[in-house]
């Protein structure tokens, strides 16, 4: 399949960092080590045969009980090749950080802020890593699976 061009190239370029690749229902996925995420993303964008110029989506998933606990998920799209790829980087709870990719796709700015806000994953090198959807002073990260569904944190009065 043609999407495997990306996965093949990626595995060859970063043999140590690409942990696993698979294709499920036509979605090509590469699971990579978080240390080299910046180099991998830059390669995906700049390689002329891949040219992933769109950072379509960036999110995280909490697999509570598994180790590493979090996965940061990137969905990239290449306009010229009309290809999509999903890159996943596993982030353990003990070292809940990953490098920010704002320097590669400026679109990642708010997406990373949202993930920080809702999952508490810290993006190293992000220019303005503040809560986005919730307010400053909110305690905890509600999309973590151990955040209680019905917990209330009403915001009373203005923030100062």
């Amino acid at each position: 399949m043609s999407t495997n061009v990306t996965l093949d190239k990626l595995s060859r370029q970063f043999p140590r960092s690409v942990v696993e690749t698979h294709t499920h229902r036509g979605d090509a996925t590469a699971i990579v080590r978080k240390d080299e995420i910046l180099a991998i993303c830059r390669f995906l964008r700049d390689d002329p045969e891949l040219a992933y110029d769109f950072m379509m989506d960036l999110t995280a998933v909490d697999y509570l009980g598994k180790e590493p606990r979090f996965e940061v998920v990137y969905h990239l799209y290449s306009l010229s090749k009309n290809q999509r790829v999903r890159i996943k980087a596993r982030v353990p709870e003990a070292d809940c950080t990953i490098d920010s990719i704002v320097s590669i796709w400026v679109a990642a700015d708010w997406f990373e802020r949202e993930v920080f806000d809702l999952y508490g994953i810290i993006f190293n090198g992000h220019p303005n890593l503040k809560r986005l959807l919730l307010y400053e002073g909110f305690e905890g990260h509600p999309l973590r699976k151990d955040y209680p569904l019905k917990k209330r944190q009403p915001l009373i009065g203005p923030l100062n």
Partner: protein
Amino acid sequence: MTDSAKNLHTEQMVINMGPSHPVTHGTVKFTVTLDGETIDDLKVDIGYLHRGFEKMCENGTWEQVMPYTDRLNYVSPLINNVGYALAVEKLFGVQAPERCQYIRVIISEMARICDHFTNIAAGAMEVGAMTVFLYFVEARDLLWDLLEELCGARVTANYVRFGGVKNDLPEGFGAKTAQAFETCRKLWVDVDKLLTKNRIFIDRMRDVGTMPAQEAIAHGFTGPCLRASGVPYDVRKAQPYLVYDQMDFEVPVGETGDNFDRYLVRMEEINQSMRIVEQALARIPRGPINLDMPALRWQSKDDTYNRIEALIFHFKTVTEGVKPPAGEIYSAVEGANGELGFYLVSDGSGKPVKCRVRPPCFPLTAAMPRMMRGRLIADIVPTFDMINMIGGECDR
């Protein structure tokens, strides 16, 4: 003159626009740092409409997510319904029957037309053209009447089901649509005459909020705002879903990527969407509207009451939810604002592990500071209108 202007002592002033301001439909706050009337810096504060969409999804069954999707982009809820249903079907590895696919194309395009009508209506009103608002809201209402007849709701449709739709098109739907489109086209021509060569409108829109193609891509623009910058990316063409590959339609693109081009692109997309609806209505085949797959699609009430197997399936799927095989998928449709993506993770149980929406207006709103720095405060209004931030979708 210039020297005195340069040496004039000015002081920066910070003002808040919003969260409740007439132009911030939805609720959003701009913190604007002004030098005179020029914007030095702009901060966008979103989240006022955050309802915890993903948290709710993760604590409900797969079916229970469907009504929540209505409340994402509430101006075109049917596209959200279709997008979510397609994503779950991709997770299952199934496809809806052909007639259902045609119905989904029809309702998606009607929702897109409604969205563009609303966007242009509100945008024109906020730069002073009240008549346009009345005309396009009338046009939108004609379509909403049709949709109400179809699914019983004007806004919160909840019409699409996994592997099907709730009910078939009502009697005489095609004829009524043709009639409604006739009026819509007349109103379209009126609005075109009122706006497209209107000096005031052009002055407010032309060369305002400009995004060159390369920057628009880097900022993650999709939809009409990306196409206004001259990039012909449309999910319906690039990765056709449903029966879009059998439809004959054009993808309009702009040249400069300013607000006026965004307006023109949307106006033309209304026409193209009407073409698609007409083609789909003319070609729609007979046949079932639902997949015959009891583990996915609820059985009819008749079957549930009269056949024991159907009753068992009904009981299982209602209490436990349908159970997609474990796995993860990303599925995108062309929403009214751009690429509406769903990233779903299933562990094989009746509840999603993750139900992520890629909201198309989110990166557009994030680019507001880039588009507004160095411009005048009055430019915020038309730009914010034309990127069409929808609170429910942006904040989820």
